[in-house]
Structures are given as C-alpha cells and as structure tokens.
C-alpha cells in the first residue's frame, strides 16, 4: 500500500512524474485541483466558516499530527495569521532520507496554500523559505486592513535561517532570486547569467587543466569550482561562475576574494544543495546565498538524485550545468583521479593512489559525464585524456 509514513517522499516524486510527463503547468494544476481543492478542502471549509481563526485551528491540529516544530500566531485585530516553522517535518523527511526527485519540493506549499486562501477571500501577504526546513508566512483576509507581526519566534532570528537559498513572496508575488536580475525561477537566473556567451569552459582541478591542450582552448567564459576560485590553482582570471562544492573547505577564502572583487565583475555563485549533505551557512561567512543548479539539471533530465548512492563530483556537476545551458563547451581538468603524473590536483605532490570517498565513485562519474556528453552532442570539446578514460571505462 501507499502509506502516510513515507508520503512526503513519493509526494516529491509525484511532482517530478507530472512535470516530466506533462510539463510545468501540470504540477501547478495538481497543487490547485488535487491538493488545495480536494485533499486540503478542510482548510477552505474551516476558513470559510471562521476566517483566520478557522485556518489557525486546522493548522494547529495538523501540527500536532505531523509533529511540526512551529509556532502559529493569530492576531485577528491586525488581520494576520503568522507561521514560523523551525523544522518542517515534510522537507525534513526528504533531507533525512536523501531524497530530491523534483526541482523544488518547497514550492508545493505556496502552490496549494495560495489558491486555498484565494478560494475563501484570503491571501498570502508574505512568505519566505530557505529549502532547509525553515520558513515563515503571513496570511490575511483580503477585505480588511492588515498589519505585520513582530514576534520573538521569528525564524529569521534563528541561526538555521542562514542556510540554504531563499524563495520569497510579498503581496502574493514571487520576488527575484537575485537583487539585480528579474527572474524568480533559479533556472531562468542561470540562463540569464550565462546568456552573454555561446562558449563555456568547464575547468576541473585535475592536472590536465593546465596542459598545452587546455591552455590553447580555454575561453573567456569559465566555470570553476570553489577551491580554484579561492586558490587560483588552475585558473588565474575572473570566472563567470563558481560552483561551490557540497563539502567546501574554502568558504572563507572564496568570501575574501568575492567581496574584494568589484560587484560588476563578481562571478555567479552556485551550489548543488544536495539533500543528503550538511547544509552550508554561506551567510555567516559573508557570501550571498548561491543559486541552486539542481532544478535546471533535473528539468533537462541530466540528473536524477539516487538516495544513498554516490553522486558526481563538483567538476562533473559543472559540466552538466554547462550542457543544460546549451553552450559550446570545452571541458578539461576532469581526469578521474587517474592522471599519469600521479597527481590528483594541480600543484599537489604525486600520490599515485587515490581512494574514492563513499559519496563518489568512478562509475558514477563516467555515467554522468557520458550522459552529459551524449546530450551535448557535437557542441563539446573534451580533453583527449578524459575521452580515452571514458572509452576505457
């Protein structure tokens, strides 16, 4: 049977099923018709009967059943129902169980709550979530004046709020992901950022990133990983994008370089936000929250997260990103830790022995690289060493 204990896991999977089969709009339609108007119809019924107080009682009951660590605050005089979520059990299920089937699981809440509220003459006044299980909301009836609440339990005062990336709504309207760009969808942010170039060079940190083949082909628009940005190990210039790895040890150095750079020449910071990895606090080291890349990779069928199984290295994720952006790509510095020099990374002494950590594997790397290159077709130039490694794999 399909039970309620793991519902959140296959709920996320269901979004992905509908999206890949019937497109983006199918998911929004599902949230409205199946969830807001059918599954959660008791919210609208309670709200119709007793307004914000009815919604409050319904949510409190749900909170008890789902063991939500949250605070609901109702102030009818100010026409506001506020929620501060400290640990969302729903998103928490996905993070705990290393699940990430669809582009953005958290979107489902605004996806059903807003239409449910609209159906009873109410609306979302403000909302933000950080994709790590923390969020806050203010809801109001449309026909009366509204005042925001200032509460001690405001989740934005909690250190956990510093993690993740934010989606934000004001007056029921989604706000841009980046202050200087209009898109509200991270996929559009990525497309817009890289729209000024047809050519992208993806540089891993392997020794081939600095050999004569690469030097002769490296372009102006480069994507590097965070250690390269921090140390200039294989690239001295200003990259167009920096993909920060899931276990970065270079955040402070990245922050130092980033903040010393003129804002007009700063790279776009990006991150995978993989569910099974500890979520990084970028804000505390002075960095803006990076733009997530998984939504774009999932939308293009370039990545399927497999719970508990190895995932690609950051360099391979950068390659998949370039392919998803449909650029002419040059890729080098991905040597699968098998460079004949015996060096794993440039500038390091020869180790001659590399042991894959549990969370990566050579098979995972070659599978993802091959799939990405197949999708890219003739628009990619691959370092001959990597080509040979893939042929031999």
């Amino acid at each position, binding site marked *: *049977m*399909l*039970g*309620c*204990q793991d*519902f959140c*896991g*296959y*709920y996320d*999977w*269901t979004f992905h*099923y509908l999206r890949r*089969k*019937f497109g983006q709009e199918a998911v929004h*339609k*599902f949230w409205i*018709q*199946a*969830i807001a108007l*059918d*599954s*959660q119809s008791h919210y609208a019924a309670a709200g119709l009967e007793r307004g914000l107080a009815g919604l409050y009682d319904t949510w409190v009951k*749900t909170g008890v*059943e*789902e063991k939500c660590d949250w605070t609901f605050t109702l102030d009818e005089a100010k026409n506001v129902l506020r929620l501060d979520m400290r640990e969302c059990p729903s998103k928490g299920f996905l993070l705990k169980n290393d699940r990430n*089937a669809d582009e953005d699981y958290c979107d489902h809440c605004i996806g059903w709550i807003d239409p449910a509220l609209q159906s009873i003459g109410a609306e979302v006044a403000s909302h933000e979530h950080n994709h790590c299980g923390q969020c806050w909301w203010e809801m109001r009836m449309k026909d009366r004046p509204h005042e925001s609440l200032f509460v001690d339990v405001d989740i934005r005062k909690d250190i956990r709020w510093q993690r993740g990336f934010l989606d934000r709504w004001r007056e029921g309207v989604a706000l841009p992901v980046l202050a200087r760009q209009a898109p509200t969808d991270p996929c559009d942010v990525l497309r817009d950022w890289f729209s000024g170039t047809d050519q992208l060079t993806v540089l891993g940190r392997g020794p081939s990133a600095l050999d004569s083949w690469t030097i002769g082909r490296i372009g102006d628009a480069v994507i590097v990983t965070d250690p390269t940005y921090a140390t200039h190990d294989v690239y001295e210039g200003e990259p167009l994008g920096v993909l920060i790895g899931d276990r970065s040890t270079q955040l402070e150095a990245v922050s130092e370089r980033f903040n010393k750079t003129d804002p007009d020449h700063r790279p776009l910071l990006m991150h995978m936000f993989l569910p099974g990895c500890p979520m990084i606090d970028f804000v505390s080291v002075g960095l803006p929250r990076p733009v997530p890349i998984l939504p774009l990779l999932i939308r293009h069928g370039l990545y399927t997260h*497999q*719970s*508990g199984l190895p995932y690609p290295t950051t360099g391979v994720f950068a390659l998949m990103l370039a392919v998803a952006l449909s650029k002419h790509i040059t890729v080098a510095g991905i040597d699968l830790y098998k460079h004949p020099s015996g060096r794993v990374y440039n500038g390091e002494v020869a180790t001659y022995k590399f042991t894959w950590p549990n969370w990566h594997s050579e098979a995972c790397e070659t599978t993802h690289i091959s799939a990405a290159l197949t999708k890219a077709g003739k628009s990619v130039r691959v370092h001959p060493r990597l080509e040979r490694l893939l042929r031999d794999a």
Partner: protein
Amino acid sequence: MSAPDFYFAINATARHILEEYGKDVLIDYWRSLGREYYRGRIVQWREGGAAVIAEDWQQYFLREPNAVVEAAVDGEIVELDIRTCPAIKHLRDSGRVILDCFCEHCDHTCGAMAEAAGYRFERAGGMGSCRQRFVPITHKTMGAI
C-alpha cells in the same frame, strides 16, 4: 506514527490523475512509483526473499495509524492479512469520497515492485480489508486466494 491526513492526498492524487489524464496514465503513475521510488525496497526484496518481504510489510504497517495487519510466510509465498486498511478507515472516518479504484494502487504499485523483485502480486478483497500475496514468479499457481 505518521499523520493520517496524508491519505486524503493519496486519494486526491489518484482522482486528479484519473480525471485529468485517464486510467492508463493512473496505472502508469502507480507502477512507475513502485519501480522508481521504491527501488531500494525492491533490491532488499530481491536479495532477501520472502522473509524479508514479510518483515518489510510488517514493519511498514506498524507505522501506519490504525492498521491491523498480519504478515506471514508460507513456504516461498508472503501473505498479508489486512484486516483494517488504515487508508480506507481514515478516509471513511473523515467522510471523504473514496475513489472507486483506490484499492488498485496496491495492485499496480506493489505489483510493479513485486515483479521487479521476482514475484507476482495477488489481492482478494478490498475497500477496508483484503488479503494480499507475493508469489515467486517461478512458483506454480496455487489457485485463487
């Protein structure tokens, strides 16, 4: 114990897909869910056989509110005696309209999982209580349950 209101969403999801896309898509949804989402359980079933399948379901139903289920192994066959289906009970108790084909989600989701693990899925009964069996595909038919 998990929140039983999620059964509302399971019922509503099936209704939405049926009404919007038709029965073939609903069946494909259920079967794909079994094959893809439950890939990990399938691997365990395939490797562990009947005892593991029975234990998996026993533990699964223990975490479903108000479920009354007995899982047993008879030779190579797993038998589930579902005396109280927690989903149907909660939907009924809450006055929800239950989709006519709601019980078929077991046939298709469990069926797809069973097939991938080398078993055939059988169900007799439904809408509140039923008997389910996981029979090795190589096993001779034992007759109707």
